[in-house]
């Protein structure tokens, strides 16, 4: 965190000064480790074994928060008899179809929940579509589409409050993790037993009624073929310990860029609409009714999906959207499978995708398998790059690595490349949404220089011009109606005709009749009387005031600081904070009080905005036939979930299993100790000659790539370097691409400190200066020593400091829930000296592939 988020790390330092214990788990000893009370070295790619080990410790030693677990988790829910765990099936769950590479999740449900009521019914889908079509739906990242709530699930029918039923979630969990012992953690993750047990003691001692523990993760946890399950492991542990919905608890995702939280809330993702509404799919979401039936839940706030969707359609198509035309639902594009960034590259290579906008993104060096990215771009008709500087994605056609290897000739490339300078955040108004879901407004300090323009300017004026062209050329063509009917009426200001960012915020926040600003998503309707661009942001412009621009200093308000910025939803600072009080509505302890039930006023109150129905008493129990928010009982703290509970076991929503299980990364020098199943069986593999995988574990050829590589960031640079390698004051602080290796690995491979090394995978070979440092420790596990190679991924051929891109090495095997690549754990070789130049580079990589006998099929088994 100190390495990648130094400004945010100030709060960790402050917590430390106030007595917090800081534990840092990382393959390398970083600037964060330097300030941690406990540093835990780990083999990259083994985190589920590590955190799973803590879960096992908690369960075996009865260190879970029993009252919390009983009240707020699904520990007592009894599962279907048909469910079989990875412990029963040697590493896979029941329902796996190896041919289709997907799970049928029916057996993961709670007992007696198969028969579903009208709303949320998905059964017709199976009846109406073929398995291949269903796989298309599955591949549309449905796991991610449930990011703001669980997948569709019915309330629990059968529960065992004693937690003794052999099929209750608690017992299933206990059996599932029983083999994650300290010995196994050492064997799989390379974490010394003594260190592991110290972590277990610290985490459990700092959880319970009086204390809470926070987990903080960054991309090191997400960028794996089991990335989502990494986070799930932490979610299970934090739920067992009672650390969710409470001050000082939670799982904090540090995002990769400023406002990446904002760009999932109001998404730049293919599978989501604003506010985590799933993007309609071609199968099963034919019209608004079928969409709402399929995507809403019968209980909780997702039961109001229709209100959110209709209000969104009203925001986009205004008066054109009426009940008579399904509120223009038909105007929305439909998914037909995965259209993730990596599928898009495949589409470019196959000629399906012919145009590409890159706004502040540098895939030529910043995305995994960088060569494949450039080859994809070279197959386009046109490419628009908007950035601050002349990044590699704008110049690959002229001086990219493929020109040197003679895989491309500039004169043969047909892609028309446009470079448009972009305005910086200091040159435009707008909001950042941080990891706390807090929006903070920034005001332009200066006008952008020269031709630089804001992204808002670009999007608005591009849309305006397209609409002009369409209006003139195809007035009566239905195909263009979705664009022509858009509400595209933002006022513009100043010499550059900059659209008014606050007008956009007001539209996002929503309004009712006469454009009266709304103050909460509970005011949204499904009859077309309300308009709201993102239901979870509803109220950020309440009272016609930009709530995100509030800047009351911390010293003049309480510790919750509700008057600084605005956090969705409804300015709540801690989600699910009903769980900070016991089932009766009293804080678990004075020390950790956040919200509570006030019997006198019969309302929830407290320091934070209660994340609960304000006047719902703790003893409220819904009638059996209650629906929607009426079905939320007084103790259903997790109000977005279909059963109101935190999920120790995920009966729906994840495509690769209801519980996390340790699998080896796509490429690993090790076989899986736990199971015969080596990899996540349903991980996404993209079979392509530019994306060859290496053999793993006991497979022949695996020994050709004996080391674990992991990519990461340095404080001095930002992401793919577009904002740092071109600036002298940052470039001079880390002026060369380097790899970090231990003295032992340096000796084994003859690497010289400050000299050069070449790192090789099946995709490519890159060169880096060598930093030999004891901050990278060889790990001893399973009777052998494992060496790790650290690769900061900020470099590329352009800018003031130049170097090869670590992403040249990385393959595209993806997490099946969210389609993220596995940069954080792969296998490589390293050798002294610089890499070959020109076509000889390809010869070197070819030679490695031959030695490892790599084919298109290698590493693609389920």
């Amino acid at each position: 965190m100190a390495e990648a988020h130094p400004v945010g790390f100030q709060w960790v330092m402050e917590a430390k000064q106030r007595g917090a214990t800081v534990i840092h788990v990382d393959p390398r000893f970083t600037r964060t480790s330097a300030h941690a009370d406990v540093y835990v070295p780990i083999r990259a790619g083994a985190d589920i074994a590590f955190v799973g080990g803590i879960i096992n410790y908690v369960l075996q030693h009865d260190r879970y928060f029993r009252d919390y677990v009983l009240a707020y988790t699904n520990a007592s829910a009894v599962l279907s008899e048909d469910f079989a765990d990875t412990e029963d099936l040697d590493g896979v769950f029941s329902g796996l179809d190896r041919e289709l590479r997907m799970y049928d999740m029916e057996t993961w449900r709670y007992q007696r929940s198969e028969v579903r009521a009208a709303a949320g019914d998905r059964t017709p889908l199976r009846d109406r579509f073929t398995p291949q079509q269903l796989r298309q739906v599955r591949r549309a990242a449905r796991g991610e589409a449930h990011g703001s709530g669980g997948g569709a699930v019915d309330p629990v029918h059968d529960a065992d409050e004693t937690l003794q039923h052999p099929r209750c979630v608690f017992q299933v969990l206990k059996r599932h993790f029983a083999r994650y012992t300290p010995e196994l953690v050492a064997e799989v993750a390379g974490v010394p037993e003594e260190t592991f047990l110290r972590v277990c003691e610290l985490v459990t001692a700092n959880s319970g009624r009086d204390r809470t523990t926070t987990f903080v993760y960054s991309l090191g946890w997400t960028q794996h073929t089991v990335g989502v399950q990494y986070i799930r492991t932490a979610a299970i542990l934090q739920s067992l310990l009672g650390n969710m919905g409470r001050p000082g608890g939670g799982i904090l995702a540090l995002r990769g860029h400023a406002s990446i939280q904002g760009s999932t809330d109001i998404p730049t993702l293919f599978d989501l609409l604003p506010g985590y509404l799933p993007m309609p799919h071609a199968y099963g979401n034919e019209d608004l009714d079928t969409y709402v039936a399929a995507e809403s839940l019968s209980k909780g706030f997702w039961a109001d999906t229709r209100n959110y969707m209709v209000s969104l359609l009203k925001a986009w198509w205004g008066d054109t959207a009426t009940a008579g035309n399904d509120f223009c639902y038909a105007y929305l594009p439909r998914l037909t499978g995965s259209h993730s960034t990596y599928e898009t590259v495949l589409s470019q290579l196959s000629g399906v995708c012919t145009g590409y906008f890159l706004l502040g993104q540098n895939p030529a060096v910043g995305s995994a398998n960088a060569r494949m990215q450039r080859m994809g771009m070279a197959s386009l008709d046109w490419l628009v790059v908007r950035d601050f500087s002349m990044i590699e994605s704008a110049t690959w056609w002229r001086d990219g690595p493929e020109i040197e290897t003679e895989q491309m000739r500039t004169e043969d490339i047909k892609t028309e490349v446009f470079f448009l300078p972009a305005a910086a955040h200091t040159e435009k108004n707008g909001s950042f949404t941080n990891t706390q879901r807090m929006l903070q407004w920034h005001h332009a300090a200066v006008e952008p220089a020269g031709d630089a323009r804001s992204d808002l300017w670009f999007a608005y004026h591009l849309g305006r011009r397209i609409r002009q062209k369409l209006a003139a050329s195809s007035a009566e063509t239905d195909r263009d109606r979705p664009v022509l009917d858009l509400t595209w009426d933002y006022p513009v200001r100043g010499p550059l005709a900059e659209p008014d960012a606050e007008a956009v915020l007001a539209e996002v926040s929503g309004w009712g009749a006469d454009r009266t600003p709304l103050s909460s998503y509970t005011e949204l309707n499904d009859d077309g009387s309300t308009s709201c661009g993102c239901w979870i942001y509803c109220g950020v412009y309440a009272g016609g005031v930009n709530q995100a621009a509030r800047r009351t200093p911390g010293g003049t308000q309480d510790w919750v600081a509700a008057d600084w910025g605005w956090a969705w939803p409804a300015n709540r600072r801690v989600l699910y904070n009903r769980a900070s009080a016991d089932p009766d509505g009293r804080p678990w302890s004075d020390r950790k009080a956040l919200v509570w039930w006030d019997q006198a006023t019969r309302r929830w109150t407290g320091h934070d905005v209660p994340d609960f129905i304000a006047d719902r008493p703790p003893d409220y129990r819904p009638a059996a036939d209650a629906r929607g928010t009426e079905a939320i009982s007084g103790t259903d703290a997790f109000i977005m979930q279909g059963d109101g509970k935190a999920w120790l076991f995920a009966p729906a929503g994840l495509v690769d299993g209801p519980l996390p299980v340790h699998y080896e990364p796509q490429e690993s020098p090790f076989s899986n100790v736990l199971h015969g199943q080596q990899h996540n069986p349903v991980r996404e593999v993209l079979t392509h000659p530019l994306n060859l995988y290496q053999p793993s574990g006991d497979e022949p050829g695996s020994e050709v790539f004996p080391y674990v590589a992991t990519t990461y960031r340095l404080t001095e640079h930002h992401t793919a370097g577009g904002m740092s390698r071109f600036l002298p004051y940052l470039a001079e602080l880390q002026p060369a691409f380097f790899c970090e290796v231990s003295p032992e690995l340096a000796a084994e491979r003859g690497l010289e400190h400050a000299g050069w090394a070449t790192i090789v995978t099946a995709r490519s070979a890159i060169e880096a200066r060598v930093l030999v440092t004891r901050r990278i420790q060889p790990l001893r596990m399973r009777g052998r020593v494992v060496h790790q190679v650290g690769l900061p991924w900020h470099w590329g051929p352009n800018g003031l400091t130049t170097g090869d891109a670590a992403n040249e090495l990385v393959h595209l095997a993806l997490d099946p829930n969210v389609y993220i690549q596995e940069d954080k754990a792969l296998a490589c070789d390293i050798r002294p000296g610089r890499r070959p130049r020109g076509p000889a580079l390809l010869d070197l990589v070819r030679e490695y592939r031959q030695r490892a006998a790599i084919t298109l099929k290698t590493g693609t088994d389920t």
Partner: protein
Amino acid sequence: MSLDPAARSGYADHPPRMGFFTDTSVCIGCKACEVACKEWNGVPEDGLELTGMSYDNTQSLGASTWRHVAFIEQIDHPGQPRWLMASDVCKHCTEAGCLDVCPTGALLRTEFGTVVVQDDVCNGCGNCVAACPFGVIGRRETDGGAHKCTLCYDRIGDGLTPACAKACPTESIQFGPLDELRDRAQARLETLHEAGVAGAQLYGEDPGNGIGGAGAFFLLLDEPEVYGLPPDPVVTTRDLPRMWRHVASAAAALAAAALISGLGGRA
């Protein structure tokens, strides 16, 4: 010597002496201080060289580096591995050798007790470079002049915090009246000692030291040499009066001897 160098320099009515307390125990090595300093003061980039010295590619203070973060890897440190980080800066000495030897008056003592180079007065003689016991000040090849930290003289006069301290995310660099900083540093030192951080020590703050106490002092977690700091710095001009006295008495003795020998000769 007086801790009030401003008064000594003739400022009759002056603000309190201002300085830095750099608490390296909370430095996270982000180098924001280096960047903020260069941005505010317009100090040029000075080399894109990978040194191999941990994450320290800045190497040392000099004409174009007014804040320098040192990185010291101590993975074998007893108890647990350490990676020390420390942001170095001009000490703004009570007895400032650079100022003493400047022939043009380009180096001056400000009303805040800090030491500043006036670019338009400096003739580039370089005397100050040799006079600094810390190697802080340097001459820039491009303009020939001497340059160093001004403690953001152009900011503190307007009531602003110096750029480095403003940018520091963890309050490792603290700016304020020197008296307050000394109290804070003492309290922090005691906290660390109570926590068992045995090596923690203040560096440069003692008015009895060889520079009469620094206006910018440090809390270190190890011996100064570990950070590349001189353990017992002495202002290079401290001995000058005594040396001149020696020279004068030697000269007098010589003259006397000559006189005596002359007398003797005559005798």
